[in-house]
């Protein structure tokens, strides 16, 4: 089938196995996940031509499970963006409406699934990069609890925030893919040895679901809010108790997120000098000049901006003002979740404040950052969060976001399954 949406950077026709839980099922893999023998660029021209000599742990697990990896998907360069327009290889279009973005940064994975080019997909989520495109393309996407999926072979952007996760059309398929990829791996020292072995039960009866007022605040489209409130009503009709709650730490969560991720990025992306992989440099010139030229001409604008922001935030004299304060704000977010999860089982709200943007609509970088306000809290705290489709506004999909306790991905998936069953009944 033709890729009319630029969902893939590389297509492959590996047949997959005849045995295993994913036997013969097609899986699209985001291009920041290493695949031995398949070019892996992270959507960046600085990695054009890079072919990893090894598989990421999740890719090994996919192959063992019989999956047919059918290509590498387009993404915002190194995961930096919320629209997939920051790819070094052209934007991905939203299959629901090709004049719109698919969301990002895992926009290629979401588009591949939404367009029926792959049954399942792997994305990565640093500040919403699985949930945002899942919401915009009308599919399901899970950001697992931090420490439940190995990051071995994931090209690092912001290690303390990012996780690999499953995307699919249904909660059942997201669960099936999650089961396969959550196996322990000693090579990722942040893994907690908590494999997901759950069979989803579509039930929320008796669950207490908190609805933070801040998730319906300034910037949230009122029609999106209405769809999500209706979805929460549905959960209530399924037997859940709905409790209005508050998360005051949301006020500084987005700033905390952007200071943290850019700081980590400035360190992680120091390795791209064109020498060990990538375009090469002029070896006769002094290294400082050669690296500056290669990095300046092969990184896109947003990547350069984030490296500079992070370098600045970590520089002498500013560390306390930016990075130090961001860690305080981050601890406040984690404390808010912990307090709420003392009496509440799940939190619900919109995944994104709006429906999918028009291509080119978010030209200003700060406006693009603000779009992540509802997804970054889960990354800052490490808790699991899912986006499940909950209707449309002007024909464009809206996502319901459900968040749970650390390592309670099972409850998040059950609640999403309950909503899905009721909504599609």
């Amino acid at each position, binding site marked *: 089938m033709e890729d009319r949406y630029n969902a893939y950077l590389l297509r492959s026709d590996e047949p997959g196995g005849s045995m295993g839980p994913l036997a013969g099922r097609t899986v699209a893999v985001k291009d920041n996940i290493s695949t031995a023998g398949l070019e892996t660029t992270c959507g960046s021209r600085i990695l054009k031509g890079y*072919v990893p*000599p090894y598989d990421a742990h999740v890719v090994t697990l996919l192959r063992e499970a019989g999956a047919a990896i059918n290509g590498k998907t387009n993404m915002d360069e190194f995961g930096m963006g919320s629209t997939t327009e920051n790819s070094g290889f052209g934007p991905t279009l939203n299959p629901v409406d090709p004049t719109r973005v698919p969301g990002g940064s895992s926009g290629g994975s979401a588009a591949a699934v939404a367009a029926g080019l792959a049954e399942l997909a792997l994305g990565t989520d640093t500040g919403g990069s699985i949930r945002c495109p899942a919401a915009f393309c009308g599919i399901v996407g899970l950001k697992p609890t931090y420490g439940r999926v190995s990051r071995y072979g994931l090209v690092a952007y912001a290690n303390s925030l990012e996780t690999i996760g499953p995307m699919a059309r249904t909660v059942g398929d997201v669960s099936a893919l999650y089961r396969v990829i959550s196996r322990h791996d000693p090579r990722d*020292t*942040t893994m907690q040895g908590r494999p997901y072995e759950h069979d989803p039960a579509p039930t929320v009866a008796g669950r207490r679901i908190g609805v933070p007022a801040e998730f319906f605040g300034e910037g949230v489209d009122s029609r999106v809010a209405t769809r999500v409130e209706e979805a929460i009503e549905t959960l209530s009709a399924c037997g859940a108790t709905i409790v209005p709650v508050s998360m005051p*730490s949301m*006020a*500084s969560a*987005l*700033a*905390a997120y*952007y*200071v943290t991720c850019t700081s980590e990025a*400035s360190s992680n992306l*120091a390795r791209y*000098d*064109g*020498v*060990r*992989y*990538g*375009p*090469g*440099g*002029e*070896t*006769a*010139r*002094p*290294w*400082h000049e050669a*690296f*500056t*030229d290669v*990095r*300046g*001409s092969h*990184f896109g*604008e947003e990547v*350069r*901006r984030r*490296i*500079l*922001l992070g*370098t*600045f935030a970590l*520089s002498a004299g500013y560390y306390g*003002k930016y990075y130090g*304060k*961001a860690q*305080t*704000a*981050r*601890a*406040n977010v984690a*404390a*808010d979740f912990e307090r709420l999860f003392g009496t509440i089982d799940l939190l619900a709200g919109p995944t994104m404040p709006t429906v999918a943007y028009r291509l080119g609509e978010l030209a*200003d*970088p*700060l406006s693009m*950052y603000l779009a992540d306000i509802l997804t970054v809290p889960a990354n800052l705290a490490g808790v699991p969060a899912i986006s499940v489709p909950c209707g449309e506004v002007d024909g464009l999909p809206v996502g319901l976001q459900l968040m749970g306790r650390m390592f309670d991905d099972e409850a998040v998936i059950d609640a999403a399954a309950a909503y899905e069953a009721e909504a599609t009944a």
Partner: protein
Amino acid sequence: MVDESDVRRIAELADVGIPADELPTFTAQFNRILEYFDILDTLGDARAGERRLHTVLREDEPCPSLPREAVLGNAAENEDGFVKAPRVM
């Protein structure tokens, strides 16, 4: 607030070239973002609760690594089994 010379200096520290014609817009956008970050100034130093962090370092035990040719295969230039880099002196 930072000015264009600050941005040029940060770019130099980070080994990232910013073309001269992009510098004014880049600096303006940079300042809008830094202004937004000022919300962090409203926080005190006291953290709500303690993040339970612990070290996950393991013993450094040698084990087999990737074959040399597999690694060199991605380098633009190599010589005598080594990656060739720009001169450092």
